[in-house]
């Protein structure tokens, strides 16, 4: 159970152009338990305005599965913001 104000730590990963904008591949942040992925992205967008401009073309993932931006985050979660994929 979460108390809503309890703080948890999550791992955040950046790939491709996002990694270049943020200047790091990986980060670890504290945020209130249950915060949606969107809130985490907004924090990074405030620090990196160029990142925020890509929001419409990004898909989020939580624990290596595509996730809705409204997905709540909990302790130990691994989050990534994924640019359009171009493998193959």
């Amino acid at each position, binding site marked *: 159970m979460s108390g809503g104000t309890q703080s948890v730590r999550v791992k955040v990963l950046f790939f*491709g152009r996002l990694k270049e904008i943020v200047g790091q591949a990986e980060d670890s942040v504290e945020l209130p338990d249950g915060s949606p992925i969107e809130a985490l992205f907004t924090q990074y967008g405030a620090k990196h305005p160029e990142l925020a401009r890509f929001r419409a073309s990004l898909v989020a993932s939580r624990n*290596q599965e*595509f996730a809705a931006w409204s*997905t709540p985050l909990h302790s130990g979660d691994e989050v990534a913001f994924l*640019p359009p994929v171009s*493998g193959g």
Partner: protein
Amino acid sequence: MTNDSPIDLLLLVRDPIDQTALVGHVREPEDGAVVTFDGCVRNHSRGRRTLYLDYEAYEAMALAKIREIAEQMHEKYPIHRVAIAHRLGRLEIGETSVFIAVSSEHRPAAFEACRFAIDTLKRTVPIWKKEYFEDGAVWADGEMPPAPLETRAAKPAS
């Protein structure tokens, strides 16, 4: 990074892909067909001469998504074995970036499953390529993976 199920061989590699090994993995005495797809680095992109490509991946998730593709191939088509390898890092013109091999008793299933595999891989697997030209480099235009539907309110914590 590898994920071997007993019948499928699924790989992310940094060295050249061993196509012979992948074909050998899927080819069994009961098969009447092996279909392969060889995705290779093209020397141009939208009218510009490409020098080389650099691929990166969210490796754990990419391998999980490739595993899902293999599972879907077995569900959708009467095939025997699947081998999929995607290469990462710097690739020169003409080198193979992705190789897929599928075996089946009769050829239609292997053809269709192979096509499904490459089309799905290009839409859903978190891999990105940067294209290097004489006058600069760009991240290739990609495809947005299908995202889960947004719910209006987040689900309560459990």
